């Protein structure tokens, strides 16, 4: 029996390379990777033949793959499909903890089969979610070298590079990605690059294309793209359009957190702060993020309800976690914006800017320098924060204030 098994091992491997990807347009992704070892794959969430990316669909898929992994801990297919679903869940819940579970699972299968391509490319995506951008870049490059024809890897590399602030290389990766295969994933990245360059009209066009190109069985991605379209409308001052897109996102994926917050932002822009507050307060119970708690605090501060404002500002800080564990400069920006713990804000901004040079980190650094009276350094950082031509309101207003303080 043993010899029989080994005799057929190559058959099992070969058939999964060749035939089991048969009917790929029906059951597996076009980007479905070839693997060196036999992988029992199935259609991913949101793919034809797979469960939809609804809350229930994601939950079912996660439970099913956890069960498969308990029975067979080295089941690469289950690990990849589980990670895929966990990544979606992390985004849908604005809760990156599920990404950690995915990383564990993938690393376990990669330990036994280091060349396992499916697991490797998925690990890159998971590491992005964990804000381990240098690791993600390395993994993305390794996967790219292994499979130069897979556009996914250029997405991973570009995402990592953009977070690290290496914009020229990031934009090259995205242009490569879209020319290899124009898809929703590529359109969304082109949109973000355009936005960073201050081209909001072009960003909107491309993000709209991403939304149009997303199939109905992937409501999570539909909701995500619709939310991004809404955000772009909002930034361009088109409130009814923004509101409609946020509502579209919630129609596709009920209670989609980013879209719920978006609806609140529209209310704030319309001057309906009572309605906005109600939306925010309802949402913060589900997703207590720094961003959301900060917005609630601001609304209370406007109403001169300092006690409530302070309560939510504190919640914002708590949601961000300890200063020394920050992988992005949000907390620094928040603290500096609200004149809280300015020394700590600067320390965070400096420590994050040792890791990455994206414009948001540079802005946090500029603003923390400014608030701590280090104007020359603020000016230098602010120039770096505006280097892409961004039209981000906060970055531009910080830059203007710094410039004015220097007497320019």
């Amino acid at each position: 029996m043993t010899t029989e098994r080994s005799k057929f091992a190559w058959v099992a491997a070969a058939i999964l390379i060749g035939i089991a990807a048969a009917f790929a347009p029906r059951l597996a992704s076009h980007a479905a990777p070839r693997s060196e070892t036999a992988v029992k794959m199935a259609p991913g969430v949101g793919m034809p033949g797979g469960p939809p990316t609804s809350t229930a669909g994601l939950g079912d898929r996660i439970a099913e793959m956890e069960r498969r992994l308990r029975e067979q801990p080295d089941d690469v297919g289950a690990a990849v499909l589980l990670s895929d679903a966990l990544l979606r869940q992390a985004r849908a819940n604005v809760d990156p903890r599920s990404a950690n579970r995915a990383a564990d699972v993938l690393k376990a299968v990669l330990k036994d089969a280091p060349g396992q391509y499916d697991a490797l490319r998925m690990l890159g995506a998971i590491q992005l979610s964990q804000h381990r951008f240098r690791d993600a870049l390395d993994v993305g490059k390794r996967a790219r070298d292994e499979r130069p024809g897979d556009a996914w890897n250029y997405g991973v590399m570009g995402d990592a590079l953009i977070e690290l602030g290496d914009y020229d290389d990031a934009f090259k990766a995205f242009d490569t990605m879209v020319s290899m295969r124009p898809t929703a994933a590529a359109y969304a990245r082109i949109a973000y690059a355009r936005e960073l360059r201050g081209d909001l009209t072009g960003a909107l066009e491309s993000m709209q294309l991403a939304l149009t190109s997303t199939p109905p069985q992937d409501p999570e991605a539909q909701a995500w793209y619709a939310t991004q379209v809404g955000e772009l409308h909002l930034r361009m001052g088109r409130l009814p359009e923004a509101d409609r897109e946020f509502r579209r996102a919630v129609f596709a994926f009920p209670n989609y957190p980013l879209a719920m917050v978006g609806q609140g932002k529209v209310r704030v822009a319309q001057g309906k702060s009572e309605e906005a507050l109600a939306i925010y307060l309802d949402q913060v119970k589900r997703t207590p993020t720094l961003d959301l708690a900060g917005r609630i605090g601001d609304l209370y501060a406007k109403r001169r309800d300092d006690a409530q404002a302070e309560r939510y500002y504190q919640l914002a800080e708590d949601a961000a976690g300890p200063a020394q564990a920050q992988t992005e400069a949000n907390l620094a920006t928040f603290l500096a914006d609200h004149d809280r713990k300015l020394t700590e804000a600067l320390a965070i901004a400096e420590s994050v800017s040792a890791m990455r040079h994206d414009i948001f980190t540079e802005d946090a650094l500029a603003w923390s320098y400014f608030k701590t009276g280090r104007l020359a350094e603020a000016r230098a950082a602010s120039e770096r924060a505006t280097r892409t031509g961004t039209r981000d309101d906060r970055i531009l207003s910080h830059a203007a204030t710094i410039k004015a303080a220097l007497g320019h």
Partner: protein
Amino acid sequence: MKKTVLLTVVAALVMFQMLPGKASSHREAPLISQDPMADNTDLYAFVSPDNTDTVTFVANYIPLEQPAGGPNFPAFDDSVLYEIHVDNDGDGKDNVTYQFRFHTQTRNPETFLYNVGTISSLSDPNWNRPQFYDLTVERNGMPGNAREDLGKNLPTPPDNIGPRSTPNYDTLAASAVQTLPSGIKVFAGQRDDPFFVDLGSIFDLAGLRPFNSLHAIFDCGGNCPVEATGHDGVAKFNTHTIALQVPISQLVKPGGSHTIGTYASASRQEVRILRTDGSADVHGNWVQVSRLGHPLINEVVIPLGDKDQWNRQDPENDSQFAQYYLSPEVTRLENGLYAALDNADESGRNDLVAILLTGVPGLNFTGDKRSDLLRVNTDLKPGVNGACFSGIPTSAAPSRLSVIDGDFCGYPNGRRLADDVVDIDLRAFAQGYGSILNGIAPTLFPNRFPNRVLGDGVDANDKPFLSTFPYVAAPWQGYQVP
């Protein structure tokens, strides 16, 4: 579910990791690039049995549509260019190209619902998301304008939702069949997926149920007994069909060959980060992301690592893939998995090159140029049911095995809806060509045994086809098939 939650929490506790709080991060954009709406799943082309002066093309997109697909029901993608290409002089290049662009209306911007009441006609205001399309033809080396609009704002039917939303579905769908001034008939909309195959068995190490006893792994503890019939893995799924019926005179050159080669495709626009100016030029070139001539080429012949590249290429460049046809991996697998088979040649497969890349001499050969086109000899006229045994029209029922069985009006001379391309391919790759083809060309088409009886046991579609255009069966209804 509870355990999942618990595991997630435990993982989070064990692995101390901070929660990034930024809510509007772009970095979390989805990476999955599955693109069903631009996924061309099948192409059929045949001389129309009820109008033999025409050829009917059926190009299907969007795989495995669940009939109960709400609240967002599937539709063609407004941002995709769908095309049916025809080469009539054997060089692999388009001479006639039919282009379809869709646009969706929103009748009531106050709701995202597909419909807000019964849809009793194509113009019913209760249908909130009607989709229309424009049809354009491009001609190259053919009489007529280089580019001509054949139809504007042509209607599509709604999806088949249920007895309250879409009663009288067949009538509703039939009203979307258009006859254009050029004499062309056209239909675009949801249909039953006419493909049939035992996906479950083929995925399970190609364990063809009728041949389970001959499989290398024949002992599954009683779980893989021999079964005479397979299980149709695409039964009760829908797809989106573009059907086009064109007078043959518009497809061939005056005085030219009567054998045409065809393929269908879907293309998306490339966008670049840098726009050349502030407003115009927001879109770049069309990039072909999916194409289909012969069935199963992308799935069975082209290796995974080459699939994107293959899909981008036009058939005129297909010589670069010739080695995959000459030394097909599928044949090695068939030989390896089924010891009982008479081992088929694993290299030098000129038979496959003929069938798949150049056409079969005497049947539908178009020259030495190798290109993956579905070739139809339009001089072979079918009888009323679509068959022409020995090339002579007959009212007899067509053979699912087509040319192998002597019925020359089917695959690989074009492809009819009922042609069993899975069984035909299983036999062709194993060189079990049957006595008729073997009699015509004994060296090119060996007749190995038992290779010539291979099959997945699924011999027909789960729904009968229509006898008139668009021939493809009505879609399964969401209410009936959850």
